[in-house]
């Protein structure tokens, strides 16, 4: 993957931004799973 000339406005590189987004999604799905389990009778 070619690193573009314009860096992201935060975290320095796009690779780091993508990693943070994917970690966020993994945590979000985990939270929804916990929510499903906790609210089940």
């Amino acid at each position, binding site marked *: 993957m070619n690193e573009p000339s314009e*860096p*992201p406005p935060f975290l320095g590189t796009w690779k780091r931004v993508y990693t943070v987004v994917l970690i*966020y999604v993994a945590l979000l799905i985990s939270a929804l*799973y916990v929510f499903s389990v906790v609210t089940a009778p």
Partner: protein
Amino acid sequence: MKPLDWVVMFGWLTFLVSYGLWRGRKSGTVNDYLLAGRTMPWYAMGLSIMATQASAITFISTTGQSYVDGMRFVQFYFGLPVAMVILSATAVPIFHRAKVYTAYEYLENRFDAKTRALVSGIFLIQRGLAAGLALYAPAVVLSVILGWSDQTTTILMGSLVVIYTTTGGIKAITWADVQQMAVIFVALILALFMAIHLMPREVSFLDAVTLAGAFGKLKAVDTHFDWNNRYNIWSGLIGGMFLALAYFGCDQSQVQRYLTGKSVAQSRLSLLFNAVAKIPMQFFILFIGAMVFVLFMFVKPPVIFHPVEMERAAQSAEFKPVEDRYNAAFEARKQAAQRYLDADHRGKTSPADLEVLRSTQRAFDAARQDGAKLVDKARGSNGFNDTNYIFLSFVTNYLPVGVVGLIIAVIFSAAMSAVSGEINSLATVTVIDVYKRHFRKSGTDRHYLWASRIATAFWGVYAVIFAGRGGGFGALIEAVNMIGSLFYGGMLGVFVLAFFFPKVGANGAFFGVIAGEAAIFAANHYTSISFLWYNVIGCLVVLATGVVISKFAVSAK
């Protein structure tokens, strides 16, 4: 609706159209009209992408789906953020570098004219069907709620869309979408607040969550794998990712949004904004449906949510016994819910309590089903379904004056937002990939600008006419996704070939798409595999066919 609601509704629609016209007033070139001069900031593109996706169907159908089926539909969006990351890293810089107006223009650069023609043709068919449905779905529901004819609602929405889209192009659409998303967020928060606020004093928010959970309405994640189960974590992550890759990577209605970005970075940020915000937003909308379900355990809803059918059924001699059974079932369920909460407060709920509660729900559902049968009998139909009227029944009957007008206006403008994006992209493909490519290659910029305006107006009128013939679809949101899934697998496959398989040539791509589409239609016709898997099947068949044909061609040479 009260006079204040009408004022709010028409005031908002007038503002929206005027604002769009004002923002798009300087679209004097084709580049301005179709790509906003490539000047858009990330937040405008991001909100516009979200607004185009969050059509009126999202409010009408998703909330109803959650009311009936729980929150498992949220899994459909699990693969979307992954797709956004992949597209940010691949498609966005490739399309920006190629300086194309449409995604299909790139296919001619990479393969040949016939592949571009095939894929742009598939897009025109698929998106043309969806544009009509995006207008039809809310028009039918709103016409029932407002007491207007289908034609009036369709023509009102269609005319407003055509006015600002034809005049201001994508700049008008994008900035109008930004305003719409702001109001959509406000309306959603108000709807949830009111659903919770209207519950009896003794039922707290946590009690509402307990009851919704007891009925399985809050089960957002299902880890059990099943090919035929439409929504589980695996179909959401894999099938949903393929669908999102195809939708955001190959569908001109979305690609055109991020082609308007003033840089690769701005376009990437717009997609990543959606990656972060989409799941929470869908969760929120579904949660509203679950809370409306709990509210209707304590506040009696109509036997039938469709107001016209309810009125008609009430005139039948058979309605009274059905209504009596329904009232008794409602009271039994209400008391069972109260007893369950009392036991929960004491920390002593048992499986037996839960079974009692659920049995009252089954009796309640059966009574409602009897009401639906009366409607079927009166209409001579089969399987009457009023899911799409649940949320609007809640809005019109229980929300305060002014808020009703706001939410109806939001649903109107959400429909307009989706349709405007679709007709704009249809016009772009018609002019760039068909008219300019095959009929008039050397016109002036002014000529193509007017051709784009005429094409936009044409597709707007087409959507209105198609909307009049849109009956016969089931749950609306699934119908839209289903249409997409029949075509997206083939489109995605050819773009994956273009990006990642440099040795695959034009014939491999062309026949790969045909084979992929054939596989999808076969899966749809001969199997019961959930439609979310069609994108995966279609894409893989395109890849396999493209690679094999290209290898065969090389060997033959």
